[in-house]
């Protein structure tokens, strides 16, 4: 442990990552040891592909030490492949679902890819997410199973949890395709305060040239990203998700009327608090330009039951990447735990929370000791 950068805390790491993502030139001017550490932190935060893309756009990756330059090239190749796999899965889906007469909407990474959003560049999608109407999801699932998709192995508890409490069915997979297919009937789990109606989301979905499926409207894509991060997650090591929000805001804010529709929609969906968090944290970390009037209007509407300063401190702590040499800080683990508890309490009555936590803990303790993976 041989350099000053070793002492960086999670928040400093997050700030440094944000700085090199914003101005990639700064990375190549750093000493090699610091470059190496920050690229490892970027990998830990699932941001190395994005960083590699930005270094390449800025035409500065040739100034990196050779092994780091090679890792950038490797990540870009992998990202290109994943993009190709996503497009392939979309193509297969369009054939498989051609005779199911119901709208299918692409969500998240797959939607960013078909729209060729800047946020998709260098991103490493691991699944394809689609949204269908709840009353048609059984038919969609049956059709996919008949046409070669398979359910991933899962214990009975998790199966039941998905069916009863989740906004998606258990993940599917097509043959050797490395990506999972998540079929949703809503963009957030049922039961909580945020209730974006799937029918409205699907109703305002937009077609994309060249894509067999439509995508959510710009404001709904933004709300989906903020809800997922601040309503339905523990924020643990989720800098990448925050960067997605930054990318969506920067791209879509160029469209006339975007901010008005965004704030109006957030109010209608009970998503004002998540949006307020999204705007605050992405502005803090990535300096996302947000009009003052929008920030003020959203933050007045989006009050949570936790004091804002306390909630923000938890988010900031949980969201930071783990230190490459030390793993996640204890404070980050604790903060993520509290945020996880919050996410559960937002949705479930206490009895369900207790049962769920107990089942998961038991499962973790009883997990087999030996790895299932083969030793090469």
């Amino acid at each position, binding site marked *: 442990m041989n350099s000053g950068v070793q002492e960086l805390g999670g928040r400093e790491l997050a700030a440094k990552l944000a700085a090199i993502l914003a101005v990639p030139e700064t990375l190549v001017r750093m000493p090699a*040891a610091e470059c190496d550490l920050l690229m490892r932190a970027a*990998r830990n935060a699932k941001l190395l592909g994005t960083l590699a893309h930005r270094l390449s756009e800025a035409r500065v990756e040739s100034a990196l030490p050779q092994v780091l330059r*090679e890792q950038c090239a490797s990540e870009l190749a992998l990202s290109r492949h994943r993009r190709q796999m996503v497009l392939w899965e979309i193509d297969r889906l369009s054939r498989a679902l051609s005779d199911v007469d119901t709208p299918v909407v692409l969500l998240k990474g797959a939607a960013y890819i078909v729209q060729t959003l800047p946020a998709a560049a260098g991103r490493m999608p691991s699944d394809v997410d689609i949204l269908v109407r709840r009353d048609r999801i059984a038919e969609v699932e049956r059709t996919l199973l008949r046409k070669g998709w398979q359910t991933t192995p899962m214990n009975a508890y998790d199966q039941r949890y998905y069916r009863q409490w989740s906004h998606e069915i258990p993940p599917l997979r097509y043959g050797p395709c490395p990506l999972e297919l998540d079929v949703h009937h809503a963009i957030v789990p049922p039961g909580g305060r945020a209730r974006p109606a799937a029918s409205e989301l699907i109703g305002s979905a937009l077609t994309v040239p060249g894509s067999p499926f439509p995508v959510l409207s710009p404001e709904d894509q933004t709300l989906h990203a903020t809800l997922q991060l601040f309503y339905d997650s523990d924020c643990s090591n989720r800098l990448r998700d925050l960067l997605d929000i930054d990318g969506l805001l920067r791209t879509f804010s160029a469209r006339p009327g975007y901010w008005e529709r965004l704030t109006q929609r957030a109010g209608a969906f009970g998503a004002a608090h998540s949006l307020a968090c999204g705007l605050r944290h992405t502005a803090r970390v990535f300096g996302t330009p947000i009009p003052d009037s929008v920030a003020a209007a959203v933050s007045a509407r989006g009050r949570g039951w936790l004091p804002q300063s306390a909630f923000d401190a938890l988010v900031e702590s949980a969201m930071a*990447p783990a230190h490459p040499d030390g793993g996640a800080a204890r404070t980050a683990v604790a903060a993520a735990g509290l945020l996880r508890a919050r996410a559960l309490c937002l949705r479930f009555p206490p009895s369900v929370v207790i049962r769920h936590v107990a089942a998961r803990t038991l499962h973790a303790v009883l*997990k087999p*000791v*030996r790895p*299932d993976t083969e*030793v090469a």
Partner: protein
Amino acid sequence: MSRIGELGEAAIAARLEGTGLPLDFGAARVRVFSDHLPLAVAMTQVYRDYPVFEGESAFTVTAAVRRASGVRRLLRAQIRFVVDGDAPFEPFPAETHLPLLEWGLNWCIANRSHHRLMLHAGVVARDGLAVLLPAYPGSGKSTLTAALMLSGWRLLSDEFGVLNPAEPAVLHPLLRPVALKNESIDVIRAMYPGAAIGPAFPRTRKGTVAHIAPARACIDSCHRGATARLVVFPKYDSSGGLEIEPVAKARAFVKLAGNAFNYETLGPQAFHAVRAVVDRCDCYQLRYRRLDDALAAINGFLRGIAPASQPLQPARAQADGDSTAYASQAGSSAAAPASPTLQ
């Protein structure tokens, strides 16, 4: 520059606990940390001729093997493979430290090398010409690769055939200790009594595993490639004799591409690279019972290919002087024990 074996266990343990132990494999450079002393002892043996270089601060992989904390530690001592702040695998029993490190490093290297086509094959070279030994279950690839190295061939890798798709004629070394399994450990020990074999690790997922330290000359030439010339699909068969059959190029293509680590990831680039390899290589299937027979056959294949008479495309500067490397390696009998059975 001092070598790991010369520094000794105590110094290596201190490096593993302190600033990390750097290792240069050629196509990848790694840095290892550990607080588990038995790993230092084993590494001092199987990495004995790797130089300890100073002043490098960028690596393909920085990984640690750490003693695990947690409740289950009370029942059984465990270790974890930690990379960039994550522990991607379940803990291993503490006594299988070197297999965990080797497997974890291979996993990381394979996942971080999509700038290269990574064939799954042993690679050895002689006179600047490389022989690929693709890995299939039961092929005896590692045993054969080890025997070739111990009888004077230059080992490039026992696991990865590394190609730059822009220049697919050249195989690049990714030189790691050769992992032997089960019976092959005794076979190699009997045939090459001087071989530097590290401790045996019983009861791993693949049975007993032991590692051979690569010869010094191979380590010192781990940045020099070799030109692809021969693809041999070995097949160990305890019942038969020696059988050699040419393999049609189309079939060789499918077999090479089919078990590459990242053929799909590289797409068309991988297609053209594998085609270039198959185009310029003679391809054989080699069914063997006795290791001696297989070695003699592979020597024979390459002897039948006179390097000067074959209009090989120039493999750039990287392949030049490989015959010197081989000559110097053959001269250094301490590093590469000569095979009594072959010579």
